[in-house]
Every structure is written in C-alpha cells, then in structure tokens.
C-alpha cells in the first residue's frame, strides 16, 4: 500500500519536473512572469515530492517492509535502526533516488535564492536542471524502481553487506552525491548565460557559493571513503587509484581549476571561454563518473551493480558534451576578453599555471582509467595501469601544485616586481629549506618526501606571513590588539583568508600523503606470549577471546604494545564471522593506535596450529603521518566554511545586480 503511494509520488515528481522543464523553456523565450512563477512552483513541488518519495522509502526500511523487493534485498530485521536508515542508499535504486532528491533540493534552493534574478538566464538554468531531473526520475521510475512489491512477504530481508555497516560508509555516499550533483548549478547557470545571451560575469557571481558547496562535498566525500577503506577494508592504506576513486577525483580536479580561474574572470575579465569550458568539463565528468561506476565499462573492486542503465548515462554524457560544445561555439563572439595578460610572474600567470597543472592531472587520471579501453581499441589487447603509474605521474604534478599554492596567492596582479618577490618569499623559502634539511640530516633520503616537506614549509611560511603582515598593518592603523586584528582581518575578507586556511589544510593533506613514503609492514605468526617487532614497537600476543553475539562470532586477539621496554597499551584486532549469513562472511576489524607521528595498524588474519600450539596471524603496519590527512580534512572544512560565510559586500553587489535594466524588463 505504502509502496504504491511511493510509486505514485515518484510519477507525480516526474510529471512536475517535466512541466517545470517545458514551462521554463517557454518563460525563457517569452519572459512571461506568470509562467516563471509557475515554473518555480513546479520546482518546489518536485522537491517536496522527491522528499516524500524518499520519506516513504525510509519508512519502508525502518518498518521492515520486506514485501518490497528493494527492502527485502538490502535490509534485515537485525540491522540497527540507524543503519536501516542508511541502508536505503546501499543499493542502486535507493542511491539513484537519493541522487534525484539531492538534485531536486539543489534546484529548489537555487530557484529560491535567485528569485530576485528572474529572467531568461535563471529560466534557462531551470531548464537544464529540470531536464536532468526528468532524466533521473524517469530512469528510476522505469528501470530502477525501488517501490516494486513482491507478491509475498519474506520473513526477513537479506541484510546489508557487513562491510558497509560503518559510520563513514553511511555518510560517504550522500556527501559524494552532494558533490556530483551540486556542480549542476554552476553548469546550468553557465548554460543559461549562453542561452539567454547574458554572458557577462553575473552567472559566476550568482553561482560562486554553489560551486564551493559541491567542491567541498566531493573532496570530503572522497576523504571519508578513504577513511572507510583505511578502517574497514584493512589493506593498510586509504587510496588505491581504483577506477571508482578516480571517477570521483576527475570532477574534483577540474572543479578546483574552475574555482580558481573564475577569480581571474571576476577580477580581470579574462578567460571567459576557458571558464565555460571548465564548468562544462566538470559537470560532464560528474555524469561520466556515474556512468563509469554504473556501467561496468572498467573493472573495479567496487562491486556496483552493472545494470541496463549504464548506456543511458553514456547517452547523457554524449548529450551534454554535444549540446554544450555547440552552444559554446555559437556564442564565442560574446565571450571576448577585454583585458590581456601581461607578465608570467603575476597572479594571472599563477592561475594559468594552476589550471594547466590541474588539467594535466585530470588528463593523467583519465588516461589511466581509460587506458585498458583505449589500448584494447587500438591494439586488441587490454593493457592496464595501476597505482605505480598514478604515483609516478601524480606525485610530481601534485608537488608542483603544492608549490604553486604557496607562490600564487602572493603574486601581484598584472606584474610582480623582483623587490616584492624578495620581500614576500625570503623567509618562507628559508623556512621551506629548513623543513627539508632537518629531515635530510636525520636520515630521510626519499627525494620526493624532502621536496614535499620543503614545499609544505614554504607554503605554510607564506600563509603565516600573509596573516601576520595583514594583522600588523590592521593593528597599527586601527589600534586593535594583534588577535583582534587577526580575527577582523579574516572577517573583512573571508574569501581571501578562508582560502588561505583551505590552502593550509591542503598542506596538511600533503604532509599526510608524504608519510606513505615511509610505510613499513610485517607479517607475524605469534604463539601465546611471543613478540614481534616493527620500527620502535614490540607487540606481544596475549591470547584470544571468543564471543558469540546475535549476528557475529567475534574472535578478539589481545596484543600488548611496548616501546623501549615500556608498555604503551593494548590492541584488540578482531575477526568477525557473520555466522547467520549463508556465505559465512567474515570481516577483519582493524585495531589502530594513532598519534601525530604515526599510526600503528594491526590486522588479525586468523588462527592456526603450529607444533600443536595455537598461533595467531597478524599483519602489522606502521604508517607515518596518516593522521594529518584527517586533520587536513577538518582544516579544509573550516576554511571552506569561512569563505562561505555571508559577506556584507556580496549583498550590496546583489542589490546592484537586481537593479540592472535587463532584469526589470524580464520581470515586467
């Protein structure tokens, strides 16, 4: 009964979004106010309907309605209620519905926020988003309907895969979707600008925050996925250059390039065509990523269902590419730059280099993902590249980008004098060198690691000096204390100083990545009270306990951790056997001792007999600096929040925009 209601609501949403799409086309052409308002209402209704459909599906999950096919295959009675809630997006149908819901949410908020900008631009943007909405809802309704009922009610569902029962995995998909889906807003407004021939900077100003939001979620969503892999999958790492990871990285790379290069357009009125191309590319890659993961074109350890909807996404990618390129080509005349680039040692030059590096990184990743397909097409043999290739290419590009993170923001617009270079970079460069020399003296020989430390030091130095000089200048003119000056400085210019905080987070990420150069691991087979040594640590096996729980049998090994003969604590790696499942799936629960210096990461791989004595098998890793990756993620979060806080100057600007004559004409 409820499932039928869900299905009905889903089809209503298909109807309202189709209406919104058509009405928006007409109101874009005719500038009719009544139709524009009617379109907006259809957009609001679509959001409400998607929300209802999701609510119904959530209710079906929480109430164990196993007469619904999707619930029966993705949940079970014994699942904790919180995870029943998140089990909704553990499968294809539910995750697509979540996609559609987030999309309708973005459409809702974008429409609500831009009501003051009614006109052809906004109308055409609505067309683009609503069209995508129809596409997704249609796919769900026809191919992947989560509301299909069985003609009997199974006593219990088949449960969620135990590997997915983890907090990071519960929020990782929604965050990634917020990223993937959110880039549609700047894309739609860019296309709206071209369609309505209002290709000035308005679309960029309108969508600046709408770009930061998906950029932030796509990035943190990936880090959460990494965290999940690190803690749950138990292979000692957090990033494996798997095609699915790469698929999410691609739009993030181009999106980051876009975030930076729109600043030149805002300030200098340059790179208009380039920015259009970047946002088109970014959104295309978002859909392309969905296509990759759903179609089975490339093989991946992420076992997403291969489904008949793969080709549909392929078709959507094609439609976006063809439509956007033709549109861009026909509007090229409107995108002439008014100013020109003057010197390579300038802010513009820095931004350009930033874009070149990000795009090369995108190409490198894309090339790696597509290599098997390209090689098969060209030579008939499937040839793959994996982690070594990605590391070989991405490490140098990443380090160049890191260096640029420090240099770029301090270069002056147009042209930077050598005096200013000396003044800005003397101390940071010294500090950077120190950051490489000290570890080198202490015995670090990995050249990339040393370069990374040097760059990290330099970037940190420039960021600190920017805050410091800003605060001093402000303090001396206003008489504020140093701390107050620092706070007010940031408040007065949130984009700039928030950006610095994000950059500092990136530095921390790189410090964490650099730790990979020093990873150690050993395997050990320990009998009772036997010890193994790795790095500074000695681990002593102190026995195993067996506990029968409702779902699992937990085998918990106990290890005493010693350093320099002193006991630091105890670790409990586990093996869980899901004995009620047909497949007797087991999961390995990692035990991690983390500090700022390194992670001690222990897996228990099982138990065995040796000479009549029971032994436990361990895999132990010492992963230096990993924690800085997660700290970096938090710093990036804080920095992004600072840049997104409302800025009084933005409001004033918006008021000015509303007063534009073309807008009045549109509303009239």
């Amino acid at each position, binding site marked *: 009964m409820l499932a039928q209601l869900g299905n009905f609501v889903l089809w209503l949403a298909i109807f309202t979004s189709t209406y919104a799409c058509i009405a928006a086309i007409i109101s874009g052409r005719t500038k009719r106010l009544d139709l524009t308002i009617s379109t907006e209402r259809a957009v609001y209704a679509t959001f409400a309907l998607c929300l209802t459909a999701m609510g119904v599906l959530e209710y079906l999950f929480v109430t164990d309605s196993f007469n619904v096919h999707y619930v029966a295959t993705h949940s079970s009675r014994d699942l904790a209620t919180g995870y029943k809630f998140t089990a909704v997006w553990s499968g*294809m149908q539910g995750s697509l519905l979540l996609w559609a819901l987030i999309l309708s949410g973005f459409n809702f908020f974008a429409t609500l926020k831009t009501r003051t900008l009614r006109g052809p631009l906004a109308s055409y943007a609505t067309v683009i988003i609503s069209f995508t909405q129809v596409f997704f809802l249609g796919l769900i309704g026809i191919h992947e309907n989560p509301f299909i009922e069985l003609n009997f009610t199974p006593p219990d569902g088949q449960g969620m895969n135990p*590997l997915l029962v983890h907090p990071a995995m519960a929020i990782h998909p929604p965050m990634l979707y917020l990223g993937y889906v959110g880039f549609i807003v700047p894309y739609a407004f860019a296309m709206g600008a071209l369609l309505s021939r209002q290709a000035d900077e308005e679309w960029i100003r309108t969508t600046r925050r709408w770009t930061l939001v998906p950029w932030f979620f796509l990035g943190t969503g990936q880090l959460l996925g990494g965290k999940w892999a690190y803690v749950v999958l138990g292979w000692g790492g957090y990033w494996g250059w798997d095609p699915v990871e790469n698929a999410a990285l691609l739009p993030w790379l181009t999106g980051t390039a876009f975030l930076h290069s729109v600043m030149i357009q805002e300030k200098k009125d340059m790179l208009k065509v380039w920015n259009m191309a970047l946002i088109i590319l970014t959104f295309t890659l978002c859909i392309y990523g969905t296509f990759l993961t759903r179609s089975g074109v490339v*093989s991946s350890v*992420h076992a997403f269902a291969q489904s008949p909807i793969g080709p549909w996404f392929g078709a959507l990618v094609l439609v976006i590419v063809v439509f956007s390129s033709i549109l861009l080509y026909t509007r090229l005349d409107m995108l002439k730059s008014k100013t020109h680039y003057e010197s390579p040692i300038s802010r513009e030059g820095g931004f350009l280099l930033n874009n070149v590096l990000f795009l090369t990184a995108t190409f490198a990743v894309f090339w790696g993902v597509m290599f098997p397909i390209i090689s098969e097409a060209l030579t008939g043999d499937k040839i*793959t*590249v994996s982690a070594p290739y990605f590391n070989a290419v991405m490490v140098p590009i990443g380090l160049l980008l890191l260096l640029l993170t420090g240099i770029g923001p301090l270069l002056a617009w147009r042209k930077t004098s050598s005096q200013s270079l000396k003044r800005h970079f003397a101390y940071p460069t010294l500090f950077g060198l120190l950051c490489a020399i000290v570890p080198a003296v202490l015995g670090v020989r990995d050249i990339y690691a040393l370069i990374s430390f040097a760059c990290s030091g330099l970037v940190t130095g420039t960021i600190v000096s920017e805050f410091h000089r800003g605060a001093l200048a402000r303090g001396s003119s206003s008489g504020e204390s140093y701390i107050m000056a620092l706070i007010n400085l940031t408040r007065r210019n949130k984009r700039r100083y928030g950006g610095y905080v994000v950059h500092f987070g990136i530095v921390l990420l790189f410090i964490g990545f650099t730790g990979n150069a020093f990873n150690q691991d050993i395997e050990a*087979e320990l009998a009772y009270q036997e010890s193994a040594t790795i790095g500074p640590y000695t681990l002593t096996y102190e026995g195993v306990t067996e506990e029968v729980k409702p779902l699992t049998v937990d085998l918990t090994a106990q290890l005493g951790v010693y350093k320099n003969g002193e006991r630091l604590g105890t670790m409990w790696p586990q093996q869980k056997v899901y004995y009620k499942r047909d497949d007797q799936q087991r999961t390995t629960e990692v035990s991690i001792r983390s500090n700022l210096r390194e992670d001690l990461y222990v897996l228990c791989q099982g138990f*065995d007999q040796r000479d009549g004595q029971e032994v436990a*098998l361990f*895999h132990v890793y010492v992963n230096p600096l990993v924690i800085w990756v997660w700290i970096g993620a938090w710093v990036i979060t804080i920095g992004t929040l600072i840049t997104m806080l409302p800025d009084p100057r933005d409001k004033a600007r918006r008021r000015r925009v509303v007063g534009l004559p073309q807008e009045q004409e549109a509303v009239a």
Partner: protein
Amino acid sequence: MPAKKIKFIAGFAIIIVSLLVLVVSSSKQMSMYYFTVTELEAREIEFMDKRIKLAGKVVPGSIQQIDGNRTVEFLIWEPLEKDAFSEKRAVRYSGIIPDTFRDESDVVLEGKTNNEGIFVAETLLAKCPSKYESKSYDEIKDSYK
C-alpha cells in the same frame, strides 16, 4: 602577433608538452597486460614468466589454505555462457586475504605463471558475488523456499 604573446604561448606549450610526455611515457612503462582465463590460455607461451593481470571467478570448493592461513591455493575459471565455464587455472597467493575472497568471488590477480603452470599472484583483489546487487525476483523466492 606581439613577441610577448608568442613567448607566453611557447612557455605554456613547453610545460604542457613535457607533462604530457611524463603521462604517456609512464603509462607505457608501467602498464600491464590484462587477461581473462581463456585469453591467457591462448597466449600461454608468449606470457610465460611475464607479469600480468588475470581475471576470473573462484571455482567453488577449490580454496585450500596451506602454510597457516597465509597462503591459499585455488582454481579460477571464466564463465562463458549460461552454466558453462572455461578450463580451470591453478593459482597460488600469499598475503592479506581480503574479506570478500571466497567461492565464486570475482578476482583480479597480479603475478606470473611459473614453470609448473601455476599462476603465482602477488596481489589479489576480490569482489564477492552480487555484493550490492539485488537478486532477481525468482532468486529471492527460491531462497525462501
């Protein structure tokens, strides 16, 4: 065209070209052939003792643990048509055994064929059968009979 603009374009062209050379040359150096069980069979001799990737499905009941839990020997095959499979190939692997590895898992291995004809894998990626996939209507019905 002003000299400045030419210099500028040339500068960026050099950067871009050198980065692309890095990408393409690394991909050539670090690439690896990817075969299914039948494809490897067809080119057995050519790829004897060469590092490749090999994909297949674990033959049910073939997994044997030797030397504690650390080394496994198993057979893989390739599903051809409905209920028909290719020849089996013996695999030996030492290292971390992923939680998803079991009968009928799809595996991707990286390693070499030794002179006994056993594929010695150094890495093992496994995805368990129908991990996130919904079972068909009939399969569900069967499982509750």
